[in-house]
Structure formats: C-alpha cells, structure tokens
C-alpha cells in the first residue's frame, strides 16, 4: 500500500512553503438529533480506543484477543453512526473522528476514564466494559424501533454483537468478583471508582427529549430498569454490592470532559493532525 503523507518539515525555517503540520478542526453546530446519535457513536469510539490500549498487554493472550475484538465491533458501530450523522452534516466519518475538538465529542465520561496506561488494573477495564456493554445492549434493543430506518438497521446488527459483549464481560465480573480475596478487593475498588459515572447514562436533557419526540431513540432515563435487570444479577453472582446513588454527575455527553480526554484525543488523532489528509 502506498502512503500519501506529506513530509514533516525538517527545519523551522519560515521561508519554506511547507503546509501547516496541524490539520484544522472542523466546526459545526449539531442539531439535537445529531447530538443524540453522536453521544452513542462517540461512546462506542472512545470506549474502543480505551479497550484497544490492552492490545499486547492483557493478562492472558485470550483476553488480549477478546478485548481487541470487542473494540473492533465498537469501532464498526461508531463508524456506522458517525457516517450516518456525517452525511447529514456534510462531514466524513474520519473528519468526525479525527478532526473534532474535545468539546465537540459527546461520549459519556465513563468511556474516557484512564485505562491501562494510568496504572489502573484489569478490574477497572472489566467493570467498565460490563457497565457499558449492558447499556449498549439496552439502547441498541430500543433503537431497533427507531423512526430512522438506517439507525434501526445499524441497531439490528449491533444488538447481536452487544449480546456477546455483555456475556463476555459478565463472565469476567463473576470470575474476578467471586475469585480470590485480591481480585474481589480490586473489583470492589473498580466498582466504587466507576459507579458515580453511571448516573450520566440515565439523565435526560433537551437532546434526549428531541430524539424521543422524533421517534429516533429512547430517553436515557427509560433505559435504567432494563440496565438494572442485566447488572443486578451479575453483581449478585459476583458478590459485588451495588453502590448507593450519589450526587455526582459527569458531563461528557454535553462536551465537558474529564482531564483525561485531551490525552486520549491527542493520541487517537495524532496521525490526521500531523499529516493533513493522510490516507493509506
């Protein structure tokens, strides 16, 4: 395969006519319905980016393969959603993934929290994967009835994949939660760390209301009973207590992200930012 990367400038000479080495961000103002779909698509994308960090680093080879396979499904789902939204906005999927600023990403904060590199252990990855897979499973199920035929079709495929994700993640939650004293302790810590971020998955705002009124998709708050029905029995089997609800609310879906998001995007977007229009 041939690459068409522009060469990096070798000197800082101002007289050379080398193009800027940073691609400009795209500017746009999404409609509420577009924001709604971006929240789901971006959560798939950012979650996949975190899962992919385990490539070559998972505790066992089988899990290395599993986490990256899950990431592959999630990237596929993100591509489908971002392509669909992008068509309405006049952008390609790659522009949306690689040329958006942090504030324009609408993923739930839980997806961007540090993964392997920040020294967090495998329990953290497993708990997040389970909590998000369960949410995705519920939302894809509802989106199969979307008034947007393309979204319903994407959901029809993704919901099947999400069943494997939930089953795989649930296996690990039980295995580690009901494992050794050490694994159980780490799982409890991971649950305590991540649980406050789940509140954002079930809030409702003007974006949800607009999507629900258009028949595009469900209000987030309506997903809670079915999500609980997946999470509660697995936690019970794993011997993990479900933490009490707190007042903390994360705000990634409104574009206000944690301090970790910028680093994630810097890595994820570096190629397109450094090599404007680079393709292979």
């Amino acid at each position, binding site marked *: 395969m041939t690459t068409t990367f522009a060469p990096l400038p070798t000197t800082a000479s101002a007289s050379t006519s080398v193009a800027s080495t940073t691609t400009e961000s795209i500017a746009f103002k999404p409609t509420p319905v577009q924001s709604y779909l971006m929240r789901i698509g971006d959560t798939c994308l950012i979650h996949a980016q975190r899962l992919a960090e385990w490539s070559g680093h998972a505790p066992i*080879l*089988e899990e290395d*393969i*599993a986490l990256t*396979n*899950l990431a*592959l*499904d*999630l*990237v*596929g*789902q993100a*591509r*489908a959603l971002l392509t669909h939204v992008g068509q309405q906005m006049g952008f390609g999927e790659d522009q949306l993934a690689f040329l958006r600023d942090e504030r324009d990403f609408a993923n739930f904060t839980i997806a961007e929290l540090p993964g392997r590199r920040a020294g967090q252990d495998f329990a953290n990855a497993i708990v997040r994967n389970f909590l998000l897979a*369960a949410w995705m*499973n519920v939302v894809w*199920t509802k989106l199969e009835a979307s008034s947007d*035929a*393309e979204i*319903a*079709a*994407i959901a*029809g*495929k*993704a919901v*099947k*994949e999400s*069943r*494997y994700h*939930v*089953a*795989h993640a*649930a*296996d690990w939650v*039980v*295995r580690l939660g009901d494992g050794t004293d050490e694994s159980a302790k780490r799982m409890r810590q991971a649950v305590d760390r991540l649980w406050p971020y789940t509140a954002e998955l079930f809030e409702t705002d003007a974006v949800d209301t607009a999507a629900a009124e258009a028949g595009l998709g469900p209000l987030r708050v309506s997903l809670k009973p079915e999500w609980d*029905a*997946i999470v509660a*029995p*697995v936690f019970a*089997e794993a011997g993990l207590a479900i933490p009490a609800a707190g007042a903390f609310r994360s705000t990634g879906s409104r574009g206000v992200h944690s301090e970790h998001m910028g680093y994630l995007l810097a890595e994820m977007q570096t190629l397109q930012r450094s090599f404007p229009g680079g393709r292979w």
Partner: protein
Amino acid sequence: MSTVTAPAAARSKRVDDAWRVLHGVLDPEVPAISVTDLGIVRDVIEHDDALEVVVTPTYSGCPATEVISQSISDAIVAAGLGPARVTQRRAPAWTTGWITPQGRERLRAYGIAPPGSCASEATGANVSPIRLMARNVDCPRCGSAQAERLSAFGSTACKSLYRCVACREPFEHFKPI
C-alpha cells in the same frame, strides 16, 4: 422484487452468470467458503449502467468487508459481466442462519465447527447473561461432542477457539449470531 427469491426464468442471463461467478468468490478470512455460501449476497440487480451486487455486512467492524466488495467487483468484471458496483444493505441484519448447508459442510471440512442455532442467542428476562460454560460444540475433526472452550474470541470477530477433549485437536468455532 428480490432476485434472490425470483424464479430463475425471470432473471436475465447476465444476472444468472453473475450468481455463478459469485459462487466462486471466497471469503478472504475463511477461504473455504464463498460469499454466496456465507449468505451475504442479498441481490444482483441489472441496471442500465452497471450490475449491482447487494451485500450485507457480517459484523459491524469486520475488516474483510471492503476486501469482499473489491473481490466481488473484480470477479464480475473479470468474467466480462461488468461494470459492477457493490452496495451495502444493513437490514435485515445478517445471521449465521443464512450460511447454506453446503457452506456449513465446507466449514467443517476446513476444520471450523459451523454455527449452531441462533435461538440460543435470544435474550429475554429469563435468560441470564452469565454463561461461564460455553455452548456445546461438536469437534469438526472427530465429531466428538466433548469440546471445551479455550477462548471466547478467536482470530476473527466471527470465531471462538475450542479444543476437543477426545482427539485433543484445537479448532475454531463460527459463532452463531
């Protein structure tokens, strides 16, 4: 409407020939079976300007999707039936239930245990998401039902890894979806 179900007499020779060509286009990641065995070719439509081949993706993130589209287009053109264009149809979603009986046999002969019924994948309030033990899969080499799962995921998104307890051979299983 669909030439998949239309009687053969209703199809043009060009469409018939295209189906014959497609029977020989192999899946790049499982080169034992063709794209028609896999059940991903949903329609072949003759337009004034081109022959349209409608395919449905197997997995959302399947990296073979683009290669498959290219292989199909190349094969149609090479057979003198072009120009061809390959389009995607997402709904209804592909299921392993669309793999033909011949395709299943070819998978087995290739050493991949074919997928069982998708019914076991149905969800409902009474279906526990916990399945520490995988489903029963017959060894594609010796036929024993005594197989154990080594890995829920395999070399591609569509497969998992098993080992036969009877003949000790490891093998891949095409997951029902």
